[in-house]
């Protein structure tokens, strides 16, 4: 039987597209972890919250998730900014584990809040026009995945441009590179950290909006996305934005291949094995600087 190249290509392509969304998710965490030095153990939960918000907006007001993405991003940015400024910033001088546990507690509250509000059953957002496939050459691509990836990459690009070319973005990068120096030149570190967290939350929410279209919604998916984001950030390299995106693509493809050729439920085993290996032998990840 001839090897099914087209089938493989389709799977890889599908993985790359989903991977773009994963990459944006990880990018948000990279900004938060790398800049504000917050171990955001609630990252996936913020994503899940956004997924449900998108689903609710769609179910009750008929708002297309691709339209809801902008107001949701803005809302989550504010949420993240306030959360950091009001609560998380207080933990900047405390031992590392205290901050970890704080975010863990927030994650638990969000996950169970969702569980209480929406129940444990899975739900999905189905948009008819997304069910069609797009033909690109010999490949058959899911329209939903294509649009989601496009949206994710746009958001990533916007983030990249912000950090590269705006004064605030540069200031945030300065904080990440050299905190003492940043303070000395008079940067308002507290505000900049909160901004970074807000941006990370906004990225997570955009990813969530897209995932609402691509995947099932369950309250328990929060923790899974948190771990996924950490796997990607660590494998791709902490502090590297390109690393987060490449890592996302890698994991997306790996999961797609594992799902296609092996048992779908075992696909995350690969991610965890990869995380373990990277943590032990190359904690810098593929593209990161010193951890």
């Amino acid at each position, binding site marked *: 039987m001839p090897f099914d190249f087209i089938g493989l290509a389709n799977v890889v392509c599908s993985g790359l597209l989903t991977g773009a969304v994963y990459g944006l998710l990880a990018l948000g965490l990279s900004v938060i972890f790398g800049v504000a030095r917050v*171990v955001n153990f609630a990252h996936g939960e913020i994503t899940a919250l956004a997924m449900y918000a998108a689903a609710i907006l769609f179910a009750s007001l008929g708002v297309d998730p691709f339209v809801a993405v902008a107001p949701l991003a803005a809302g989550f940015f504010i949420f993240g900014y306030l959360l950091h400024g009001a609560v998380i910033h207080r933990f900047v001088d*405390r031992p590392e*584990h205290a901050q970890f*546990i704080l975010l863990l*507690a927030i994650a638990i509250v969000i996950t169970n809040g969702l*569980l209480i509000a929406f*129940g444990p059953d899975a739900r999905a957002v189905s948009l008819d026009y997304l069910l069609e496939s797009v033909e690109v050459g010999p490949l058959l691509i899911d329209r939903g995945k294509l649009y989601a990836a496009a949206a994710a990459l746009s958001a990533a690009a916007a983030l990249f441009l912000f950090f590269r070319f705006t004064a605030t973005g540069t200031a945030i990068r300065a904080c990440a590179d050299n905190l003492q120096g940043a303070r000395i030149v008079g940067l308002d570190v507290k505000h900049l950290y909160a901004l970074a967290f807000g941006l990370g939350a906004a990225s997570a929410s955009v990813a969530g909006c897209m995932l609402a279209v691509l995947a099932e919604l369950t309250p328990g998916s929060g923790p899974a996305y948190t771990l996924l984001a950490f796997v990607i950030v660590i494998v791709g390299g902490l502090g590297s934005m390109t690393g987060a995106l490449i890592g996302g693509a890698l994991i997306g493809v790996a999961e797609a291949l594992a799902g296609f050729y092996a048992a779908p439920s075992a696909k995350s085993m690969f991610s965890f094995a990869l995380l373990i290996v990277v*943590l*032990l032998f190359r*904690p810098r990840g593929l593209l990161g600087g010193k951890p």
Partner: protein
Amino acid sequence: MSGRAALALAGLGALLLLLPAFAGNYLLSVATLFLYFAFAGQAWNIMMGFAGQLSLGHALYLGAGAYAAAGLYFHFGIGPWAGLWLAAALCALLGAALGALAFRYGVAGVYFTLLTIACAEFARIGLDHFSWLGGSGGLFLKIAERGEIDLANLRGPPAMFYYVILLLAAAALALSARLLQSRAGYYWQAIREDEDAARALGIDTFRWKILAVTLSAALTGVAGVFSAFYYGNLFPEQIFGIHRSVEIILGPIIGGIGTLFGPIVGAALLTALAEGASEIVAALGWEAPGVKQMIYGIVLLAVIVFLPHGVWPALARRLRPGK
């Protein structure tokens, strides 16, 4: 220990010993759960509170211990009292391996915590596909006959389980107390406070950290064995899940990491709060899955923000006469 404190402890001990005489099955099950969390919390506390290594993947040892003993019983008829030793040894090995690899390669802080989570998750998914031990469908141990006490195989009424876990919890408390006053206790606390300074004083921090992890893992494995036989069934999702790991750490964190009584006070508070809240919620008709966990989350949040050292140190200060 002051006279007042010793008296209080003795009183509590007497109360716990006599509980099954006047408590109904529900109260007994709550007390069993409290003691279980106290025991598992003490085990975790050795690694975190004493040696300062934050593990959020302790469910790995719960599950490994549980499946080891349950598997031996299910497939070979080996009773839990024998299986317990094998389970503890297996968990000790797992902990030592994890610790050795991690510390050898300088995996510390949040990276170490993530490593522990990854290992637990890996085990969870792995066992989901391991049909010899039941896979995701679960492993079921024979249900006990009502009233019949088979201590050798840990089949019997709730009171039997209660006394077993009471014994375990008391033993863990005694062990922790002994350790705190020993060379190990001093060395671990030094490592927790400042590893560089500890090294400069001649402490082989690598060896001692591994010892902490190994001991903690072995004890947690025993908790897993108890859990397997108490509930009579095992599912990878249930016993390896991250919510289990979180459950274990709640008691010590709320009560006070690194202290002797912290995990116990924390476990008591948590159990009381959770059951009390469940009652209120049921009475009000608000019942829904997730309420209990939500309460855990809110309490954890409140404690970590307002009482970062836990409830016990603040309480102990109040109880101390004078000063």
